[in-house]
């Protein structure tokens, strides 16, 4: 694992993207086994086998051999922000050495799976004792997971593309799907062998939020915009690729997880026969209208769907692009041509679970603005603008696919709890809980929000929290209800999970309302009204 540890140290001591790509490229070109290269790639891309050992056990063994009491280990962990790092730091220095490769270590870790705690304890203590500081951290990290080292998938793929002598788009295609290190060969990555997996999806083409300069450009185009752009609803569901190949159906989520079993609707024979790949949005569709995201949420995260639920919350795919037709990759065709194929195939398949995302009529940009404002009534959260000439790109690429979302809901709420973050944000209060007033004058918490403050504001809020702490509960503290923030969120629905009876989607801090005293924050009643207004 020495070359891997060295790579990690090097990556960890630079913020330069170019330098990271250079380091990764050199590593993948280096004289290490192909197995290790694939393992490295798998780790950086988050393809980690499930955790073989409970972290509570790791803590207690580390406490035992270091003589650090568990409570102190916990407190220390809060300050360090990463469990693997904490354990690596408190363990006594190693007495032994090892030359196992990364793949061998992964094998050792895998062998611990399902063993009894005593066996695991003996092994892990022995392993810790033969690793240096960085290796120990990495080894423990391989067990605890969440391997984030400031290296994005895109960065790894860029380096691999350099090594393979191809471009990023091509490398993304080679690395889609939910492969594991064992399933993927270095030859396939290098383009020296075909990937035999017929379930493999294409990399999703991701839209950019419409920015002001593009908006102005489109306004200026006037009626000519129609020649260059088409518009559709931005559906409020989950994005998916529906793949039909060799009489088999596969459904992939945007996170490249296979979700075929969660949506048995699509496992019908009428969808097989012609090999195709569709890109679209899964939504609940009931009583001839789209359901909201809250309904879809009930269907998510299940392995098996009870038939009652299938009946009550039937889903369909609203198709908005086609990537493969009759077995051929047609992503290079201009959007308008793909649209023709898309219409054709949806008509041919004639499935109740498949719908075509309609094109919106417009003469110029201002027409679209009016339609966008009405999006919620159609079960959409805004518009998508597609450039007619554009191919289907891989990943995030500016200029041909714009998402123009509705303005979020906003509400003014009072901060009542603060929690210390983890990792980079350890020891910084970065997670806050917000409340609104009920009709008895009580503050009722309804959501947490993390992001949205500038560094300077964050510092200021942290100073406030430290000076106004009322009580501590571990990493959480309650603070004097004084600061008011404008929160933005995308959706709102009933919930039985918290006191307020309300759950909001993607909450974040929009503004610090320094002008508002706490008693002028919004009320629970306001939130309820917001929820009813949105229904249709």
């Amino acid at each position, binding site marked *: 694992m020495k070359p891997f540890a060295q790579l990690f140290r090097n990556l960890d*001591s630079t*913020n330069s993207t170019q330098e990271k790509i250079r380091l990764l490229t050199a590593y993948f070109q280096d004289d290490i086994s192909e197995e290790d290269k694939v393992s490295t790639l798998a780790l950086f891309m988050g393809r980690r086998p499930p955790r073989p050992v409970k972290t509570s056990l790791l803590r207690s063994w580390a406490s035992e051999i270091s003589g650090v009491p568990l409570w102190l280990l916990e407190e220390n962990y809060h300050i360090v*922000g990463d469990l693997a790092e904490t354990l690596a*730091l408190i363990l006594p*220095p190693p007495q032994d050495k090892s030359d196992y490769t990364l793949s061998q270590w992964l094998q050792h870790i895998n062998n611990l799976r399902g063993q009894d705690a005593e066996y695991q304890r003996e092994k892990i203590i022995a392993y810790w004792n033969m690793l240096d500081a960085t290796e120990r951290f990495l080894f423990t990290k391989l067990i605890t997971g969440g391997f984030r080292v400031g290296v994005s998938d895109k960065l790894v793929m860029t380096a691999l593309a350099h090594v393979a002598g191809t471009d990023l788009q091509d490398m993304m295609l080679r690395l889609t799907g939910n492969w594991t290190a064992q399933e993927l060969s270095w030859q396939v990555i290098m383009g020296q062998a075909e990937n035999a997996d017929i379930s493999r999806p294409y990399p999703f083409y991701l839209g950019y939020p419409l920015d002001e300069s593009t908006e102005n450009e489109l306004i200026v185009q006037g009626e000519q915009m129609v020649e260059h752009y088409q518009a559709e609803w931005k559906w409020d569901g989950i994005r998916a690729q529906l793949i039909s190949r060799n009489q088999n159906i596969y459904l992939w989520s945007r996170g490249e997880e296979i979700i075929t079993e969660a949506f048995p609707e699509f496992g019908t024979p009428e969808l097989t026969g012609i090999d195709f790949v569709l890109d679209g949005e899964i939504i609940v569709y009931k009583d001839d209208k789209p359901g909201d995201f809250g309904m879809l949420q009930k269907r998510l995260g299940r392995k098996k769907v009870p038939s009652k639920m299938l009946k009550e919350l039937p889903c369909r795919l609203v198709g908005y692009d086609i990537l493969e037709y009759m077995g051929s990759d047609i992503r290079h065709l201009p959007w308008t041509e793909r649209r023709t194929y898309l219409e054709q195939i949806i008509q041919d398949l004639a499935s109740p679970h498949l719908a075509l995302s309609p094109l919106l009529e417009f003469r110029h940009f201002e027409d679209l603005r009016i339609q966008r404002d009405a999006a919620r009534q159609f079960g959409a959260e805004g518009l998508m603008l597609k450039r007619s000439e554009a191919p289907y790109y891989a990943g995030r690429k500016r200029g041909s696919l714009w998402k123009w979302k509705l303005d979020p809901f906003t509400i003014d709420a009072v901060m009542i709890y603060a929690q210390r973050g983890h990792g980079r*944000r*350890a*020891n910084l209060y970065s997670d806050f809980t917000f409340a609104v007033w009920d009709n008895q004058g009580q503050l009722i918490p309804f959501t947490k929000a993390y992001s949205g403050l500038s560094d300077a504001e964050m510092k200021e809020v942290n100073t406030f929290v430290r000076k106004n702490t009322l009580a501590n509960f571990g990493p959480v503290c309650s603070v004097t209800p004084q600061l008011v923030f404008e929160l933005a969120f995308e959706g709102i629905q009933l919930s039985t999970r918290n006191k307020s009876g309300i759950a909001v989607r993607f909450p974040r801090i929009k503004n610090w309302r320094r002008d508002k005293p706490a008693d002028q924050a919004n009320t629970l009643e306001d939130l309820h009204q917001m929820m009813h207004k949105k229904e249709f």
Partner: protein
Amino acid sequence: MGLITSTEKGLYCAQGDFYIDPWKPVPRALITHAHADHAVYGHQQYISTQDSVAILKYRLGNHIQITGYPYRNTFTIKGVTISFHPAGHIFGSAQVKLVYRGEIWVFSGDYKTEDDTISAPLEIVPCHTFISECTFGLPSFRWQPQRVIFDEINAWWLDNKRSGKTSILCVYALGKAQRIARYLDTDTGDIYTHGAIQNTHDVLHACGLKLPKTRKPDNRQHQDTFRGSMVLAVPSAQGSSWMKKFPNPEIAVVSGWMAMRGARRRRGIEKGFVLSDHADWQGLTDTIKQTGAEQIYVTHGYTHLFSRWLTEQGYKAGIMETLYQDEPEQHDDPLVEVEES
């Protein structure tokens, strides 16, 4: 009644009517070392080690009224017998020992256990009550021998030189700068210093401290002449125009905080070397044990955790509130403030 209590102005010995490292102006102050949060401006009378006098005058002005005593020499104020003992923190740094009617109290100031060959090495002073700093009082802080770190730094420098880069180390003007300068491999190249560092070097050089040849960059010097050299900069110089004159820079920070990835990354620091002038967990716990003290007070650092741990070990432990950066991590710029402590 104890010999040292915490007051609004600083740690105070009522029996002798003097303060130790007070943070507000007082008539008479014992000073453990010259770092800014321990030696503030405005006392009527300063009393320190002989080795600290020059640097205190440099920092606070030549006019201050100051008396210096050699290490271990005793003197008496109103029946309290006082002596300074090496703390190993920086050049001239000391612990303060107070003896009154058979009762012995020691205030550690800041200290480290490893001999850096610049400060007089830490002396264990047996006492009844020991007031200890605990800046790095967490078991996750474990220093490697300084030799290992200096080898890393020298290898880094050489590596940068080979790729035509300038190496810049952000260090504290008093303490870390001398410690590092002393061990830099001068065969690799020239060493340039920030003004604040060079001045401190000059003062300590006059006190007899041996340091390699360093100099301030000359404004007339061509950029390329800095390539491959080492620059010792103060942390506040980061991003300044002074720093911009060095071509192709590789910047690293040398600090005990660099042991934690989160602490380093939170400040946007790319490269860190783990080296501190404070004791690590082992150093703190060993020292406390060796003093034989039954009563321990802890000052700045993770005081709550550390005193709880000491209590569990059977000590009579408590926290003595000071303004020497308690909870260092929560300060706006702990790197600057804490390392200076």
